[in-house]
């Protein structure tokens, strides 16, 4: 894969995935909270004007991802909560100076990562990604490298909202079970929908490293969904 990594990726690179996500959310009508969501920029404008409900709306929107991310940097839930609270204080202090050159999201997560790093307590984070873990176990392939058993397509049931509702808790659990660095990247890229450039910026990692972590993380989420729900989808 060295060839592909050396070639500079086209700018439109992140589009296909974002497109998929957007298409999916449009197909589904059970996300009123998302569809009715007030844009960050409007909430920020209200926050600057001193509107408490705008602040609470932003906290509600981003707290789960902030906590997930913080938890990968610090050794306990309690410290993670402190870091997140500290992040929101940073937002309140800085909101008048925030010029919107980056998105609010990028700014917010950058504050979080800075605060988390400055606690200086961490270090279960140094475990490297095992580069030999494949996206799909070798036992699923025959000697020629082809699938040993046919793969069951998911797409027909994926339109079923009931199925989606069943998936969410399992997916959250799987997300929380990802190795730290993979979780950081999956949360920012796939939960928050940030671009790979912004994610590299926030986490201070290279584009190639980011993509490897994303690939490991996503592949693992897929295989956990398959293990949980795959059999019933024939």
């Amino acid at each position, binding site marked *: 894969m060295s060839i592909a990594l050396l*070639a500079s990726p086209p700018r439109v690179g992140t589009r296909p995935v974002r497109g*998929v996500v957007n298409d999916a959310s449009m197909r589904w009508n059970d996300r009123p909270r998302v569809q009715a969501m007030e844009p960050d920029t409007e909430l920020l404008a209200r926050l600057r004007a001193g509107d408490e409900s705008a602040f609470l709306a932003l906290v509600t929107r981003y707290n789960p991802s902030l906590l997930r991310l913080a938890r990968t940097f610090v050794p306990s839930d309690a410290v993670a909560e402190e870091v997140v609270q500290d992040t929101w204080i940073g937002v309140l202090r800085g909101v008048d100076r925030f010029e919107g050159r980056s998105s609010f999201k990028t700014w917010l997560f950058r504050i979080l990562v800075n605060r988390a790093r400055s606690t200086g307590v961490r270090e279960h984070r140094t475990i490297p990604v095992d580069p030999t873990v494949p996206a799909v176990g070798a036992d699923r392939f025959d000697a020629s490298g082809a699938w040993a058993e046919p793969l069951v397509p998911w797409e027909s049931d994926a339109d079923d909202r009931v199925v989606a509702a069943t998936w969410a808790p399992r997916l959250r659990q799987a997300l929380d079970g990802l190795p730290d660095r993979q979780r950081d990247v999956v949360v920012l890229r796939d939960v928050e929908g940030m671009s790979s450039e912004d994610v590299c910026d926030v986490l201070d990692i290279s584009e190639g490293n980011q993509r490897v972590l994303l690939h490991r993380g996503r592949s693992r989420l897929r295989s956990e969904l398959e293990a949980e729900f795959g059999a019933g989808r024939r």
Partner: protein
Amino acid sequence: MRVLLRRRDQLVCQQVVELVTDYLDGALSRRDTRRFEGHLRGCPNCTAYLEQMRVTIAETGRLTPEDLSPEAREEFTDLFRAWQRDDPDS
């Protein structure tokens, strides 16, 4: 397990699954993209796999925040009000 692609080899399924994220991010070279897509056209299993990855990504993006707990709501309300008191200009 990054896959080393040689120029003329056909991709096998085991390599294709390792290239999915690069493909979706548009990070494959044009030639590798053609080989990837060429493989998919002849392989219903890898086509199903790619679709499963897309569903996984889409579902991950659909995870909605839970509502704040009443305690958290109170805590952040206090935080906001304390900040307003200390920083009345804002």
